[in-house]
């Protein structure tokens, strides 16, 4: 068999695993109880691994907030000293079957969703979404942020955990597919998915033994947060793509993630190795009073949505999103269409009504990205570059081409070492 045939067969197998995945919400727990390798002094973050001194403002801000929330530090000064001391273990969420939006900070006490890929049995974890504005994931750590995190731990989590005992497992793949028919794309437009989830959860929340006040507060919180669903679309993608990693000869990307300093990708046939380059500034719409000058480079694990074949790849399903991330309706159509040039397959479940129900472009092939010069499209929130400020806008961004070029070079080098070329 020629090398081209081996690659073609491996890529086909990779896509079969992606398309056969069955991401399912199976329960909730806390990071300390369920995430492999988690300790009281471990902090997980978005993107490829990065040391404290190289972390961007919003990631440092989220870590400061995480240390205060964990009561390991009483204020910013103490938190900075502890973070720089070497006592805290920082690691990529992706190394722990976890994904986190924006800064992606996960600490020991934080409640997490448990999502299982029923086809292959593997798990993925993600925290509960805090909403927009001054929130930890955008690097804010003031009192209101910590107060909300405590409420999410002490009220939101126990109510939802008990509610899930009434709903039973929830098929996220079907719900995500349905949300795409209703104008979502599962990354920056999540209003339909949040509504579908709430429709499932609401009767179960009412059946729990908590006070009416707590139940009402939980229902109001979810209703008031259009992005609540994001923290389920992400682990759905994570457990889908993890099952497609580690396939020999495969040139399909199974991870794209950003830590606010660097963008990193991982390729199925190259195992756990990251290919990184400086993250880019996002072109988009800024909230009143802010400009591109205020923006931090691209940050977050939410690009797992595009890696799996929705998010920016499904923008044609979510045309109103251009009012949030910028551009015209035709741009949304063009973004989705151009992604077919760099992918291996069309999705069998995630479909786009405006493109005659064509399946979304799925399975980014590093060969096609380098050959065409077309980079994956990602729509993303924009964090302020300084810690403590929060979100300042949303827009469109791409991975640096260098990530794909370096991965291609490493792929050829690996085949040479193995005597395949």
């Amino acid at each position: 068999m020629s090398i081209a045939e081996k690659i073609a067969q491996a890529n086909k197998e990779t896509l079969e695993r992606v398309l056969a995945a069955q991401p399912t919400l199976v329960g909730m727990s806390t990071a300390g109880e369920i995430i492999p390798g988690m300790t009281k002094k471990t902090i997980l973050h978005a993107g490829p691994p990065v040391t404290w001194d190289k972390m961007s403002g919003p990631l440092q801000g989220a870590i400061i907030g995480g240390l205060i929330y964990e009561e390991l530090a009483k204020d910013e000064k103490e938190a900075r000293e502890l973070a720089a001391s070497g006592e805290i273990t920082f690691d990529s969420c992706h190394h722990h079957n976890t994904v986190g939006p924006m800064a992606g900070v996960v600490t020991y006490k934080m409640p997490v969703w448990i999502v299982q890929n029923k086809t292959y049995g593997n798990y993925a974890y993600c925290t509960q979404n805090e909403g927009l504005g001054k929130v930890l994931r955008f690097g804010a750590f003031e009192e209101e942020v910590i107060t909300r995190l405590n409420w999410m731990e002490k009220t939101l989590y126990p109510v939802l955990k008990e509610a899930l005992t009434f709903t039973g497992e929830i098929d996220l793949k079907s719900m995500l597919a349905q949300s795409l028919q209703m104008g979502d794309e599962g990354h920056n437009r999540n209003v339909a998915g949040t509504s579908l989830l709430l429709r499932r959860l609401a009767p179960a929340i009412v059946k729990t033994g908590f006070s009416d006040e707590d139940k009402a507060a939980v229902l109001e919180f979810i209703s008031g947060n259009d992005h609540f669903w994001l923290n389920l679309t992400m682990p759905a993608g994570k457990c889908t793509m993890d099952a497609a990693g580690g396939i020999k000869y495969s040139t399909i990307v199974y991870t794209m993630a950003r830590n606010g300093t660097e963008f990193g990708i991982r390729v199925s046939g190259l195992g756990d190795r990251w290919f990184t380059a400086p993250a880019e500034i996002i072109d988009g719409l800024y909230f009143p009073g802010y400009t591109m000058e205020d923006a931090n480079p691209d940050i977050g694990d939410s690009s797992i949505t595009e890696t799996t074949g929705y998010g920016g790849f499904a923008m044609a399903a979510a045309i109103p999103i251009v009012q949030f991330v910028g551009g015209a309706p035709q741009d949304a159509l063009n973004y989705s269409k151009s992604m077919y040039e760099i992918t291996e397959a069309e999705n069998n479940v995630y479909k786009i009504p405006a493109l005659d129900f064509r399946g979304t472009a799925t399975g980014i092939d590093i060969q096609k990205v380098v050959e065409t010069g077309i980079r994956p499209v990602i729509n993303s929130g924009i964090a302020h570059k300084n810690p403590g400020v929060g979100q300042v806008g949303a827009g469109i961004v791409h991975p640096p081409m260098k990530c794909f070029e370096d991965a291609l070079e490493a792929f050829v080098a690996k085949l040479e070492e193995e005597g395949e070329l």
Partner: protein
Amino acid sequence: MSKINELFNKDLRVINMGLESFYNDLKKQEIPVTHVAWKPVAGGNKKLSSLLSRLK
């Protein structure tokens, strides 16, 4: 009539590949024209196109 003469008796419909200035000239003359967004493999980068060709 040969096929080629048949073609010349029809309205001109042009697909332009390569230099965009050809496309712009025709557009100025109100000739229907579609420009193909074509780029050389790997943007013409010899090292990258050689890596790609080794996998073909």
